[in-house]
């Protein structure tokens, strides 16, 4: 409950709106993978360049690894999306989301000299929307709002209660 004192209303509002928007986006990314029959990250890994190219190659060569990655990715996105929208385990959801997006970014970084066969929907040099979204999630982890606008409030109360009893 400490945050209440540190945020002004505009600060709190924009942070919560940002949280809802990113949560919505990741949740739909996850659901769309469930809804497309036979969806696979095969194509994504095939495009992988730079430091994760070796990992991508390994995943592509092993059908089992690919299905594990597909499962973790899909349900990870859904869990992170729900966490951000509900404000439940907000810090953990923000940090996992940031790491996942960073992983996407590092698989396809828009660096000079790396050519991709699938065209991007915008124009990027070093910085891409994925990277920005990843950093935005870091911001949400640093300024968590889940215990004000979110189910984290109950968790915090429960923790406080426990501490009070000990005292």
């Amino acid at each position, binding site marked *: 409950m400490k945050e209440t004192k540190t945020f002004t209303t505009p600060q709190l509002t924009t942070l*919560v709106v940002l949280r809802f928007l990113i*949560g919505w986006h990741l949740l739909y990314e996850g659901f769309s993978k469930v809804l497309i029959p036979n969806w696979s990250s*095969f194509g994504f890994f095939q495009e992988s360049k730079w430091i994760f190219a070796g990992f991508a190659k390994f995943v592509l060569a092993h*059908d089992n690894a690919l299905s594990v990655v597909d499962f973790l990715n899909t349900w990870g996105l859904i869990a992170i999306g729900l966490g951000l929208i509900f404000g439940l385990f907000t810090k953990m959801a923000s940090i996992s989301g940031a790491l996942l997006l960073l992983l996407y970014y590092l698989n396809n970084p828009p660096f000079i000299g790396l050519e991709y066969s699938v065209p991007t929907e915008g124009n990027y040099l070093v910085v891409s929307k994925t990277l920005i979204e990843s950093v935005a999630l870091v911001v949400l982890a640093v300024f968590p709002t889940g215990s004000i606008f979110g189910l984290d409030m109950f968790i915090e*109360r429960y923790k406080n209660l426990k501490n009070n009893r000990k005292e």
Partner: protein
Amino acid sequence: MAQDKEKEIKPEEKNEPAPKTAIKRRTLIKALAGIPVLGLFTYELAAKKGYDLEKKNRVLKDLGLQNIEAPVILPSSGAKGNLLRIGLIGFGARAVVHANGLGYIHPNDVEKRKKSGTLEDWLAQEDLNVAITGICDVFDLHAENGLATARNPVRAGGAKTPDIPVKRYRTYQEMLDDKNIDAVMIATPDHHHAPISAAASRAGKHVYCEKSIALNEEELNDAYVAVKNSGIVFQLGHQIPQSVIFKQTKDIIKKDILGKITLVETTTNRNSADGAWIRHLDANGNPKPGDEKSIDWPQWLGSTPVVPFSTNRYYNWQKFFAYETGLIGQLFTHEFDAVNQLLRIGIPKAVVSSGGIYYWKDDRDMPDTLHCVFEYPDRDMTLLYSATLANSRSRGRVFMGRDASMELGSFISITADAESIKYKKQIEAGLIDLSGPMVSFNPTSGKIDAVSSATEKYYAERGLTTTTINGSELDVTYLHIKEWIDCIRNGGTPSANMERAFEEGIACLMAHRSYLEHRRIEWDPVNKKIV
């Protein structure tokens, strides 16, 4: 949970001092702020799903394609019928595929299939209840391979290798004279196809013959008459239309999805020495085995002009017009059969061919770049064949109609035409997207393999994919052989029967003569003659 919360709120409502455990109503509402957001999300998600489904169903319904299902493969006639005794004439690379289709395999290939992961699929292939009882090959090494294959106890479909001696015949005439052979499969170089097919029919043996059927009109007519008068079951080796995809395509053609088809474009796109039939050296650049001692050269030559033995001629016979009609016989035959099975085009009115040897300038007769135009004025249609052996850019096999184009390969992809009248409404309503296929079928979708993936996903996202087709891993040559054997046992006519073979033979000979004689070749349907 929600009820508990309400109870906790009550003290505040009564303006009593709240105990420490209670939560203020405002705080509680704030904590649950995610619920309306998720509610809105769920509403949007359901709406989106409904929209996508309706869009897909509407187009499929408009096209009459919503009920397309995978064809059922009937059980083999083998279980009820008698054992069929088969003789293999020629045991080179193609005959190995035939033997595999019959459920036989060479001991060395068992290991190879294990490594490539194709053994399981092959072992699951249904038993056709056949015995390979005869092998005939002019090359000792090939004949030995054939005998080892026929005697191998490892069989597909859990079958037992029949306890019947396997005999090597020195000549095909010797095999045809043997009463203990019911049917023959011919996989020799092409100059033997028609004469052996004719002789086998006259001997009362059922015939499965590899393409191409004949090198000239006389032997084609002779084989036609021999097969027609014998009552045997004849099947030409065009396994491609056995693919699940072709059965779907027949439905698409029947439902007139493409509109009036006026142009069909077929192509060959290869760019390697092997693809240009330079095959007398092994992977290390050494000559492949075989000499005059181990190969019966005069028998190999048959009625063709006598020339000294050479591994070049033995392994690369496709390059020489004495043994084959080049690209037309080797590859266009498959294209013609594919189109003929779907559209029943028959013999063209006229053919014009043009081409030359532009890249592979060795001792070949075969052009490496060739174009043939087949005219069908009665059908308001032209069939085009364009081949190159010096560029591998994939140009596909495309049926072009007034309202849509269909590319037919290992998948079907139908793209609406921007100027289509039939689909004008759907195009304007945004139901049909012109930037990608409006319908695509892929029998292997759902299976992750190197061929599909990125592009397939790209198509799947832009077009409409139905998944009613179960991925069938059956070998098409097996299915083609099965059709032939089922017809032998149960009666009926196989798809690549003698009528189709004759139409194809004439079309190919017309194209070949046009190339040789540099003129437009016509078909005289009254006198049944090429003029």
